[in-house]
């Protein structure tokens, strides 16, 4: 069983969803991102997604775009990513990396997998790599024991959901809305429907992301998904300092636990 599966079996044993928080490495600085990620773990994130700031983030809304730009102008380099991932592991947390594909290609797919595994990272979320194009990554992830988290969307066909689930390990990332990252006021009605469709094809845990920002929304998603993924809201909180990051994580951690009563 992979370490990522453990995250979800533990949460399931407690009749709750797992809380997954995202922050770009190097935002606002390399050391600053280490501190915020540590706070996220201490305040209740079961898993953190460490983002790799990229020049052309086509899946991201304005909040994460701006964070990536800030990290890069503060001098972020890809080698810093592994340092940040190590710091999460050292703090007793679990980390996966979320990255656009070009930086991995440039680094070398196998070398990237090797260095991520060596840093204690557990896997990769690949928002612009579909399994159809992922032969090198399939091989490298096997060699270095990393999980592959591919995405499914409301527009995915049944055939593609089944194929993507077969190619994935750890968990499946379901994008709750058709759109880019960014906090939204209401949970999309497409999310429960997508998760239900995914369940027809796999018993693998399903994490739901895109647009979640509050404990109330987290509770709603925890009612039908195995993991609640929060990104832009953490980035916004980080702009307000460590206290805001901890407060958000605590609110969300309560949210993923309060769904249990509602669903029993």
């Amino acid at each position, binding site marked *: 069983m992979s370490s990522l599966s453990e995250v979800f079996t533990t949460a399931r044993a407690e009749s709750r969803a797992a809380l997954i928080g995202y922050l770009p490495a190097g935002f606002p600085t390399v050391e600053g991102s280490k501190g915020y990620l540590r706070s996220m773990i201490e305040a209740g994130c079961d898993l953190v997604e460490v983002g790799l700031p*990229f*020049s*052309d*983030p*086509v*899946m991201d*809304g*304005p909040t994460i*775009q701006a964070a990536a*730009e800030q990290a*890069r102008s503060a001098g972020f*380099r*890809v080698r810093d990513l592994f340092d940040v991932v190590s710091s999460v592991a050292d703090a007793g947390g679990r980390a996966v990396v979320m990255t656009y*594909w*070009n*930086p*991995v*290609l*440039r*680094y070398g797919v196998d070398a990237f997998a090797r260095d991520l595994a060596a840093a204690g990272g557990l896997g990769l979320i690949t*928002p*612009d*790599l*579909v399994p*159809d*194009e992922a032969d090198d990554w399939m091989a490298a992830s096997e060699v270095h024991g990393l999980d592959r988290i*591919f*995405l*499914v*969307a*409301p*527009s*995915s*066909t049944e055939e*593609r959901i089944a194929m*993507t689930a077969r190619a994935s390990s750890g968990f499946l990332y379901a*994008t709750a809305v*058709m*759109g*880019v990252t960014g906090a939204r006021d209401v949970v999309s009605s497409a999310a429960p429907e997508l998760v239900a469709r995914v369940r027809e094809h796999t018993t693998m845990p399903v994490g739901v992301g895109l647009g979640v920002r509050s404990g109330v929304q987290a509770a709603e998603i925890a009612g039908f998904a195995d993991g609640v993924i929060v990104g832009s809201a953490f980035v916004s909180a980080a702009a307000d300092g460590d206290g805001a990051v901890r407060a958000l994580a605590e609110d969300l951690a309560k949210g993923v636990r309060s769904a249990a009563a509602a669903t029993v």
Partner: protein
Amino acid sequence: MGQFTPTPHDPDARGHFGPWGGRFVPEALIAAVDELAAEYDKARLDPEFVNEFQRLLKDFAGRPSLLTEAPKFAERVGARVFLKREDLNHTGSHKINNVLGQALLTKRMGKKRVIAETGAGQHGVATATACALLGLDCVVYMGEVDTERQALNVARMRLLGAEVIPVKSGSRTLKDAINEALRDWVTNVDETHYLLGTAAGPHPFPLLVRDFHRVIGIEAREQVLEKAGRLPDAVVACVGGGSNAIGIFHGFIDDADVRLVGVEPGGAGLDSGSHGATLTAGTPGSLHGAMSYVMQDEDGQITEAHSISAGLDYPGVGPEHSHLKDIGRAEYFPVTDAEAMEAFALLSRTEGIIPAIESSHALAGALKLGPSLGPDGLLVVNLSGRGDKDMDTAVKYFGLADGGQV
């Protein structure tokens, strides 16, 4: 051979030209590109679609475009030169071929809304034109820097009924306009077609954009045989994303003795680092949905391209060009901003044709190639667009407002 006849040069079913191309896009967009590929597969074999497209090319765009011999310009080249006059098409460039084709596909798919990116504004104006003609809603993303450089084209698009959205993210130029269009597409994909302007992006865009532009090469081949009685020694075109080049190249791709020459934007020179010569100086990577040569740093961050020509100012290139380069069927080299501007002025003075600065790169390439061919040599240069839109740049570059002479 017809414009839509499948060729041995088509990509595989998943859009790969050798190791290049493919689909490096979010899963959320896969259904849309699958739908587009399926629709195009049907349309290219449907006489009704093909006839309607050809009717619009003839009655609306003004095709076939002329092939004009340029004897005085040729004196400076040192070989015989024919110009393929895409500048004479409606809206002033080759771009109209592709937008008419994709706008017809949009209607076939039952979609009502079109989005597009534009750099210099040529593709945006062409798209706004096709949407006005066919009754489609049109939104054009344009980098804020480019909306300032190309205010006249912004006004043209608005007059044609398009909404122009200045893009303020990243470098605020063409690549960021594409990013923003992709973000719009993933959000509104059900009712929206992304009318991509070059032979790049995820499959099937490189295939269908190429096919809509194959008319350039098909016409040019017939015309040069008629006028010169033989095939040219080389076909020369500028390459930013590479749509005009791939369109004319395909007319000659099976003529092994015809060299296919792509001319890239060398900006201030390759040593300066300030250029857009992706095939000459780039490395393999994925950008905007396909594997191709890209300009990137050692971390895989995409770097900004620089060219005096806004239409060539792009750090990527169509995947089929990467393939043609690798297999040695086409050759690519850069010319600098200064060389392009010299050719821009030279053609204006010698032939009474003001070319687009993009196309001036191809002309500068011809000036470099000519001496090796000699007076018996024969070149076809794709004059992909007219230079009216570039007058602001020319005024500044040559000091024309201060009584400057070229």
